[in-house]
């Protein structure tokens, strides 16, 4: 698994084109380069006009950038997808069972499978959630599970995103763009559709509404137009036909949640929130939050409103909890995990810390609470100075870090300046949990556009690809 030779999604070891890429490779070979370049420019201008942009934090206020879109799709054959999907369902079921357990009996802690302080002292653990029953005992209604492929083609889960995972709008827009630019490709391939994701999402949200409602009102709660993922919030609300609300649009009265409308107050039953826990209710969490709704938690406790994802799901996707997920699968489901974890060194453990410090140049070190590729060290790519600086940071607070071997992420041909060349990719499938567990085939493929780079995050120069599951 550790090593430099990456698995190539399109070509086998001898350079031959893999079966599921053959039709695409023929098309690519017969398509003039300037037509591809022209299509690529067309894609850029379409994305700009449609306004599919994201804001970059730390840059001039209001800066909007495009996420680069690559026209070479990432193709997954059906049998491979079936295995992956089964593993994802299993994993998400276990994660939901874990969160429910933590906020009720805490049997897994009592059984000694996870050190209690690891969970209860975690800053993502929300004591306010203790004892609250949520519909269907579902907490992570929408999960984005980051999956990578290593040297021999085997899948690993890199990260579970159970708070407010984003990126699904790019999955949908990338598909729309590919169909618009290259309709002939879809005639040659039988690509499993993903366009019905918003319908599945809405159905999923309605299925977890408070009991006894015929026609629950679902809204999407956004921090507002300056949030980096605002495009996605607006897009999903529109696709589902539900109101896109900000905190100021909602209020709580007698433990019911209402929105302010031109015809007076209207009841809200399910909130698909895209705001972090900390900002949801200034009466309970951060008092300075202007994004949230005062009194929301009180209404939630009374079971008058469903919040998706539930408050406190971070306790299960934290990087320091991640090493225990296979254990959760065994404990709650009595099954062996179908998907593997990446071996992880938890630096609060002395032996892991010692190992990491002596192998820093080979490892990837991440902040336990970091996201978006900020605050991480990729050992093999780091300079001597960067290594020294990171070593000092680790030593000052080892409990804030984990380390993993540098995975040779699989690569996929990608259209770059010099032509078509391999670039490293990952995959984020979106798993919906409600009455059932559903997922659309594929997910969002992110690609590290810089040669040799392993960082796929959009804030760090990553792009996206359309993801095809062949039927």
């Amino acid at each position, binding site marked *: 698994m550790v090593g430099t030779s990456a698995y190539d999604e399109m070509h086998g070891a001898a350079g031959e084109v893999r079966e599921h890429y053959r039709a695409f490779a023929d098309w690519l070979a017969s398509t003039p380069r300037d037509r591809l370049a022209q299509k690529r420019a067309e894609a850029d201008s379409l994305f*700009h*006009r*449609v*306004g599919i942009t994201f804001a970059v934090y730390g840059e001039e206020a209001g800066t909007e950038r495009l996420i680069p879109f690559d026209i070479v799709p990432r193709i997954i054959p059906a049998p491979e997808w079936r295995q992956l999907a089964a593993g994802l369902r299993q994993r998400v079921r276990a994660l939901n069972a874990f969160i429910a357990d933590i906020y009720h009996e805490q049997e897994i802690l009592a059984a000694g499978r996870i050190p209690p302080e690891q969970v209860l002292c975690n800053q993502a653990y929300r004591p306010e959630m203790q004892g609250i029953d949520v519909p269907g005992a579902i907490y992570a209604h929408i999960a984005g599970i980051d999956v990578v492929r290593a040297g021999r083609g085997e899948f690993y889960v890199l990260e579970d995103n159970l708070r407010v995972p984003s990126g699904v709008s790019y999955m949908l827009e990338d598909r729309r763009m590919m169909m618009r630019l290259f309709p002939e490709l879809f005639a040659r391939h039988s690509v499993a559709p993903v366009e019905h994701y918003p319908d599945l999402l809405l159905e999923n949200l309605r299925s977890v509404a408070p009991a006894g409602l015929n026609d629950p009102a679902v809204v999407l709660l956004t921090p*507002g*137009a300056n949030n980096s993922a605002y495009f996605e919030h*607006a*897009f999903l*609300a*529109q696709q589902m036909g539900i*109101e*896109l*609300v*900000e905190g*100021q*649009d909602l*209020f709580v009265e007698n433990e019911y949640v*209402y*929105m*302010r*409308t*031109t*015809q*007076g*107050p209207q009841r809200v039953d399910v909130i698909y929130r895209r705001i972090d826990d900390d900002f949801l209710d200034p009466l309970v969490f951060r008092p300075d939050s202007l994004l949230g709704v005062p009194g929301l938690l009180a209404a939630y406790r009374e079971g008058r409103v469903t919040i998706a994802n539930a408050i406190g799901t971070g306790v299960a996707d934290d990087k320091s909890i991640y090493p225990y997920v296979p254990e959760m699968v065994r404990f709650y489901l009595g099954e062996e995990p179908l998907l593997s974890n990446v071996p992880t060194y938890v630096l609060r453990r002395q032996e892991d810390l010692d190992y990491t410090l002596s192998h820093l140049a080979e490892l990837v070190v991440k902040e336990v609470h970091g996201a978006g590729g900020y605050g991480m060290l990729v050992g093999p790519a780091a300079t001597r100075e960067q290594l020294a600086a990171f070593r000092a940071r680790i030593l000052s607070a080892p409990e804030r870090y984990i380390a993993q071997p540098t995975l040779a992420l699989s690569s996929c041909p990608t259209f770059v300046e010099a032509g078509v060349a391999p670039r490293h990719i990952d995959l984020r499938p979106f798993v919906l949990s409600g009455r059932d567990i559903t997922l659309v085939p594929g997910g969002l493929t992110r690609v590290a556009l810089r040669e040799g780079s392993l960082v796929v995050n959009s804030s760090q120069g990553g792009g996206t690809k359309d993801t095809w599951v062949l039927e």
Partner: protein
Amino acid sequence: MLSRTADHLYWMSRYIERAENLARMLEVNYRMSLLPHDAQIVERGWAATLTIIGLLDAFRQRYQAVTPANAIAFMAFDRDNPGSIYSCLRQARENARAVRGTLTSETWEMLNSTWLEMRVAGVRPGSEIANFFEWVKDRSHLARGVVQGTMLCDEAWHFIWLGTYLERADSTSRILDVKYHLLLPHGEQAGGSADYYQWSALLHSVSAFEIYRRVYRDLITPRRVAELLVLRDDMPRSLRSCVSRAYTHLMAIRNAQSGETERRAGELQASLHFGRIEDIFALGLHEYLVQFVGRIRDLGERVARDFLVSATD
């Protein structure tokens, strides 16, 4: 519909309409400044325009002389002037962005690309300023067209048109009032070629020159110009036309607390419906227009209170 959404839609359309009317006002002044006047008259025209939209003081803080170039730079392209065409198109786009889920994608894309083009135009004004004014008007026509042609005629649609007509009523009355400031030293009598050109430039600025010819088939007189722009129901930019359409859209979105607003809008509409130009001139056109702008402002404030900021705390 969310009150905040209605607010964004209402202001989105007001800002587009405002940008268009600014372009019209600037265009008429620009045309007039090409006529053989002395510099003083040209300056008075621009100062009158700045006064009427309430930006003369802000202008004087930034620029020394009232020249066509300065006035256009300030009112068309100035990023720091919240009342410039540049700022209006940005505001229209920002409001649209906040509710893009409520708009059709064509509507949003049209407003977004208008803003992207404006950003480029703002960097280099170019010598063909008349083309720029044409472009602004075209984009506004396009905006109305895309709303008309693609959007569901629901509450959102009514708020968009309510904003459009209230803004247009306000603008037409101000455009007409510029003429008052300009003619002030000359009294009110018609005649003289300079005066003719001023009135015809004004008609051009509200796309009413050909309409005037068709309706009156006669000399251009101030009284008829005023009649056309205040009282004609079939003239799309007249005060009567704007108010009666605003009233229709208001009635379509009425709620439990909007009764008094409906009454005031209806009263204003009736006064335009049954009003006579003789009475308006007896009161004084300027005085009449000042009153009118006040009543439109009152309606705008009442709409905000009744619908846009919901009083449910």
